[in-house]
């Protein structure tokens, strides 16, 4: 009789049942694989120009063909995944650290402190769409580092909100009272008792946010406010290819499809995780 069943195993089983979520997982894993192993799997140097191959069509040597400068499109897309991933990673780390900290402090202590933090978050959220990220970029100037900072800050309020909500709910549990009764400090309580129990919504939010970050980065890249050429960022590639839609639509379509698939993948994965981690919500 095996009563020992790890939490993770139960969650994995629940997750497995959702076929669409598995598709999401597959896409994300493929994306991560590509991003991490980029230089080893890309057939060509994405920066190497060869004007004689300008707009070379799809062929065995160039499965995605070449762009306007004769650069291999497949390699550029593969390297593009690395760029996107770096942006996602950097931004999410910023957003998580600041967002969770603010949300945990506000949620745990409540009162004036909470109100101030939340009003501040509301201000950030009041900016429509990615206007906030845009504004920050215009102040700091377009570069990879600033892109990460801008998108990171832009993502903070969501994490603060989610963390705060989870903390407020968890605070009411008796094991928190028990922790106080044994003399735990507030910091210990937040770190050992509250946050570990708030992981589910944070993980889901992180996954879904990865999609938004990618989209935002691509959007800013499209506007020319992200990484600068010749760096192969999908959004920028999309933007540059606009001019050539008549000649070689695939130069725009393929980066666009890449964006679409990865965003879809993260969304499906996020939804699947949501259902697997919180089965009661579905009922």
């Amino acid at each position, binding site marked *: 009789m095996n009563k020992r069943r790890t939490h993770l195993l139960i969650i994995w089983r629940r997750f497995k049942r959702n076929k669409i979520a598995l598709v999401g997982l597959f896409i994300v894993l493929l994306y991560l694989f590509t991003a991490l192993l980029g230089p080893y799997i890309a057939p060509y140097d994405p920066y190497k120009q060869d004007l004689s191959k300008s707009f070379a069509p799809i062929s065995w040597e160039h499965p995605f063909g070449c762009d306007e400068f004769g650069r291999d499109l497949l390699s550029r897309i593969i390297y593009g995944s690395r760029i996107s991933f770096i942006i996602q990673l950097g931004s999410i780390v910023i957003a998580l650290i600041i967002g969770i900290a603010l949300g945990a402090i506000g949620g745990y202590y409540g009162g004036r402190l909470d109100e101030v933090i939340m009003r501040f978050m509301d201000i950030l959220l009041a900016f429509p769409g990615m206007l906030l990220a845009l504004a920050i970029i215009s102040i700091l100037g377009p570069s990879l580092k600033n892109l990460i900072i801008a998108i990171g800050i832009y993502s903070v309020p969501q994490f603060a909100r989610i963390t705060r909500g989870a903390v407020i709910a968890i605070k009411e549990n008796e*094991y928190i009272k028990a922790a106080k009764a044994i003399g735990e400090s507030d910091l210990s309580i937040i770190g*050992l*008792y509250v946050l570990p129990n708030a992981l589910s919504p944070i993980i889901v939010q992180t996954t879904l946010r990865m999609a938004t970050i990618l989209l935002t980065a691509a959007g800013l890249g499209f506007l020319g406010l992200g990484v600068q050429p010749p760096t192969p960022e999908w959004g920028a590639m999309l933007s540059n290819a606009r001019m050539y839609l008549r000649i070689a639509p695939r130069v725009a379509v393929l980066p666009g499809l890449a964006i679409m698939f990865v965003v879809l993948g993260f969304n499906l994965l996020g939804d699947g995780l949501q259902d697997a981690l919180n089965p009661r919500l579905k009922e």
Partner: protein
Amino acid sequence: MNTILRVDNLVKYFPIDKGIIFSRIVGYVRAVDGISFSIERGETLGLVGESGSGKSTTGLLVIGLINPTRGNIIFKGKKLSDLTGEELKLFRQKAQIVFQDPFSSLNPRMIVKDIVGRPLKVHKLVKSDKEMEEKVLKLLEEVGLKEEHLSRYPHEFSGGQRQRIAIARALICNPEFIVLDEPTSALDVSVQAQILNLLKKLQIDRKLSYLFISHDLSVIRHMSHKVAVMYLGKIVEYAPKKVLFEKPLHPYTQALLRSIPKPAITKESIEEKIIKGDVPSPINPPPGCRFHTRCPFAKEICTKEEPDLKKVDENHLVACHLV
């Protein structure tokens, strides 16, 4: 120093506020409205009452998890409100609490070893993880659990086992006093028997003092040396166990004892057990004696003047005009 805990005129009001943007206080829940009692070393005081009586709030006050509105809580001769940071930490070793719900009083993300062992780390009573583990193991055995349970999570245990874990956590720093807030109310009868026996044994072995809170009078009878009956924030009767159960004087105590269906064939019918009326709200308690709205003997004075807790006998106090 035989008195472990003394409580003097303890009061706790919870403010109720209304309004979404600018909230203002519209009233108070008078959860505990002036109670006094004491507990000696090795003794159990049973605190019995129904919902709204204030018994759970009393438990939380006495352990320092909430602050009183007024009144004194004196632990081993020192006022709780006077304790410095260091002294407060020591208090947390000497006074502990076990909660009612075994399903929410343990951190779902901590293994048993840490749940029981954390207090040792918090109070720096051990120098290494290994030392902590040894102490935890000894305690687990004392409460009837095994070594293999050390690395498991709460959800892998039954309600009874979880309460044992909670009890182990409360004992790890060798306390002198434990508040037991309905520790067996959520458990099956047969599991309850195991836990109650365990608590009694621990009390004898370790000379512990208990504040045993429950709504179940038979459990209170089994566990207590003396009993305080609470109604709407006040103690209405306070007596040694045998006296309370054999010669109850307050109409509420009498009604409560009568209202309990006994697991035996008796001549008592269910109709005789009724206490009329509903439990009033602690926000607006009835004027005068709080029980008068449901009391079969209520007189005019009961509607106007609140009775004080008076001594009727050696150790027997009752708050009733008719006694």
